[in-house]
């Protein structure tokens, strides 16, 4: 996921190169925003991500490191911004746990991007239904690809604890997906485009 070219881009970005910043942003931002979505929900994640990048830009002169280091750094900022946001709104991170929103998001996302076999938004929404520690661990480790040490630093937990949480989260996701397929075959059939039966 992280290659040397992103390391180069991070280095150039730190030297003030706007093009390099753009490369880094395009690589890092999507999964960062999805992680923030797990924390604050789909409607606020974009604003929190913007705050995160604004602070990252302001403080970039203090950052030193490679691509992995930058991803960990900016994700730490993002998590702080997300928690601030939740405090401001006096909301708990896991306020929206019902799957109704998941279906809505899944449908719209499938319509929005036909290339995806599984809608990105519905995937994130499903991860968000996990207990927060597991959801965060899955996002940081399995989705963003951060190592356990970096993820542990972001979450303020030991690497082993983060590994465990990620594994439990993945196991829970496997169960959830299985249940969805068996319990509601028509609803879980988000992979086929609407109207496929009519075409056949």
């Amino acid at each position: 996921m992280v290659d040397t070219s992103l390391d180069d881009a991070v280095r150039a970005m730190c030297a003030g190169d706007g093009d390099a910043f753009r490369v880094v942003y395009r690589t890092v931002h999507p999964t960062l925003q999805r992680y923030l979505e797990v924390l604050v929900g789909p409607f606020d994640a974009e604003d929190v991500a913007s705050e995160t990048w604004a602070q990252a830009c302001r403080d970039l002169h203090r950052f030193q490191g490679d691509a992995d280091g930058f991803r960990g750094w900016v994700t730490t900022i993002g998590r702080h911004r997300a928690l601030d946001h939740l405090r401001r709104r006096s909301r708990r991170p896991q306020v929206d746990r019902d799957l109704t929103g998941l279906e809505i998001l899944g449908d719209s996302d499938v319509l929005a991007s036909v290339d995806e076999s599984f809608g990105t938004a519905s995937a994130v929404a499903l991860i968000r239904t996990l207990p927060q520690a597991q959801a965060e661990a899955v996002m940081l480790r399995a989705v963003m690809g951060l190592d356990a040490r970096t993820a542990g630093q972001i979450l303020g937990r030991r690497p082993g604890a983060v590994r465990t949480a990620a594994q439990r989260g993945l196991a829970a996701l496997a169960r959830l997906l299985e249940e969805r397929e068996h319990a509601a075959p028509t609803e879980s059939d988000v992979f086929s485009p609407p109207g496929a039966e009519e075409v056949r």
Partner: protein
Amino acid sequence: MSTIWKLLRPGHRGTPRRGSSTSPRVDRLLDAARATGTPRELAREDETVMLFHRAHLPQTTTSSGEQMDTARSTRRGLQAAVATGGVVAVMSSGIAFAASGHAPWSHDSTPGSSAGRHGTVASDDSPSSAEPTAPTSDATTGITTGPAARTHGLRGLCHAYAAGNKAEKGKALASPAFAGLVAAAGGTDAVPGFCAVVLTTTDDSSQASDATGATHPAHPSHPAHPTQPAHPTQPAHPAHPSQAASPTRPARPAHPTQDAAPTHPAHPTRPAHPTHP
């Protein structure tokens, strides 16, 4: 299934390093969650790039070498931003630019050459005054400094400027990233008014044309002196827009309105090249 999760148990050295799964369903879900950014997700990219330039550059301009690098990258960044995000500006300001035949906002980026050309052209067009020829020199120098990039970046710069808080705004205008904007507005003090015009008149090309045309009287310190060389303290640096952002530059008197600058009654209110096609 159970073997999969045994493999993923903590401490198991065969575990895929970054928490990947061997369940096909979960893998598919993770792939979806890892997908590259959609246009919707990257909708704020240009805004963020502007923030990067505004926030990052002042701290990097500590030495002249760094400053040059920064200026170059700023310009590249702006051009890149323009290439992806300046469509609206192309459609509005670009038309105004084409209609009026000059790119007034580019002229401060090459103050020296601009001043030098003032006189030369003035002797042909308007012997009594150099002022009306400012647009001509702008057009000439603008070509060499990439007028398109500056033109199209103005709207974005105004947005970026408007997004900052009051304390940040003053500092931001001293950064090379805003050199083009300060030059276009005719001085730091004139930026708020200029941006107000740019952001509200981009749908009206004739209005934008009038507004931008009026913001650029000739350099007050260079009346009609046909043979006068470039001002020694302001050499032509088309490749270094950061030079134009020097906070020591005197604020230009013009405002982005049609009124002539009140402190310079001698200024004609009409540029040599009519803004009406």
